[in-house]
């Protein structure tokens, strides 16, 4: 009950901010449109499917979840610095109530964001099948990773710093190293090797495998994402509990 009330509050708090709506829903759709324009400009005889909708849509859906770190981090940082969280810490809420209350609405947003982006992609030629639903599910672990990063930053940093780390830095890292903007095969070398160590590329590849229904191809990539998710989400929970016990003061 407490979790649902708090989750509901957090969802309202995020959705009533027009900037969040733009980055959460509008920006992935703009990217999708831009890539479809680029793809249309490539002559068919070139045989280059690099920016085909089947490849860009799962990539953009995965990249879109990077903004969840910004949402969760900003919300937590605002709640902390405005003492709203202090008020709630004095209530009978438990740390689990807080963590789930911050995570669940953002995961719901991730799922809705993914569905809307895939539906938009369908208008641009992506076939909608049961594999599309699988792709939505496959995106969720990296969404949890981003929520974890956001909560970790929000536990220690103020709003401005969260905006810098989770907004500018993380979204750029996720964009470049995921291979969504420029396929990694084109760059190669240490850049590609670095990307393969980080979770962003694997998140995109898992979604790409899911959308073509290649179940065997999903797991190797998803395992890397799950590892990062476990580490960062655990760190976020520990940081939050530390704050809740007032260890920072």
């Amino acid at each position: 009950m407490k979790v649902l009330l708090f989750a509901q509050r957090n969802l309202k708090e995020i959705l009533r901010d027009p900037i969040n709506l733009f980055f959460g829903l509008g920006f992935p759709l703009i990217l999708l449109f831009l890539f479809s324009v680029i793809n249309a400009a490539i002559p068919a005889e070139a045989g280059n499917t690099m920016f085909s909708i089947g490849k860009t849509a799962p990539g953009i859906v995965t990249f879109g979840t990077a903004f969840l770190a910004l949402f969760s981090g900003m919300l937590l940082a605002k709640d902390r610095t405005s003492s709203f969280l202090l008020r709630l810490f004095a209530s009978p809420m438990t740390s689990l109530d807080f963590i789930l209350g911050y995570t669940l609405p953002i995961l719901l947003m991730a799922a809705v964001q993914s569905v809307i982006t895939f539906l938009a992609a369908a208008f641009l030629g992506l076939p909608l099948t049961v594999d599309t639903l699988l792709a939505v599910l496959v995106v969720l672990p990296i969404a949890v990773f981003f929520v974890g990063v956001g909560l970790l930053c929000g536990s220690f940093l103020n709003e401005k710093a969260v905006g810098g780390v989770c907004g500018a830095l993380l979204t750029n890292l996720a964009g470049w190293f995921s291979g969504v903007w420029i396929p990694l095969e084109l760059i190669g070398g240490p850049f590609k090797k670095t990307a393969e160590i980080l979770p962003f590329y694997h998140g995109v590849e898992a979604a790409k495998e899911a959308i073509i229904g290649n179940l065997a191809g999903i797991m190797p990539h998803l395992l890397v994402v799950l590892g990062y998710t476990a580490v960062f989400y655990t760190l976020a929970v520990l940081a939050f509990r530390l704050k809740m016990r007032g260890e920072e003061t």
Partner: protein
Amino acid sequence: MNAITITNLTKKYGGLTAVDNLNLTIEKGELFALLGVNGAGKTTTLKMLSCLIRPTGGDAVLLGESILKNPNAVKQKINVSPQETAIAPNLTVFENLALIAGIYGQNAAASRKSAHEMSSRFGLDDVLEKKTKVLSGGMQRRLSIAMALITNPQILFLDEPTLGLDVLARRELWAAIRQMKTKVTIILTTHYLEEVEALSDRIGVMTKGRLAVVGTVAELLLQTGTANLEDAFVSLSGGVP
């Protein structure tokens, strides 16, 4: 009957002692003002009493429950209005009130009823459906205290409740606090000494983490041989350097 019994309460941060062996009893229905210059240990004391931070030593018993042994039971009986307004900015006044009522266990119908009651009591009816971020500072403060009272706490901690308010808004809030007196035990911290004179039954002055003196305004004036509370406070806080 005592609402709060504090015994040797201590909080240390590394080598710094923020609160040093605090001993104090506060009676049920009393409005107790805790004074001190910045860094004297007032907010740390309030945070320990409201189970937000754990003491390094000592204990406090609030309405029969220890903050060390049974913080969850303490939390059910108290509420806090922090220094900052501590409200959800994109929620309406009604949603803020109903949220806090729900978190303390009231069902949806009871939460709605309580929200309407508190809104009437604190003069918030006209802004009930407005997002709180558009309210004036005075209205936000009133809402903050209403949110603390919607759970029917037996002990209320008010940390600088009128900070930054204009004279009229402050007077309005004083009237609201006076209405609560005797029904709720209130611990108030403030830098406004006229507020202390207007509202409090007793005063405690903290300096460097220690409770220097406890008494009524008249007792403090008598003890320091001063003519007003400000002079008494300056004298008890160690004087102007």
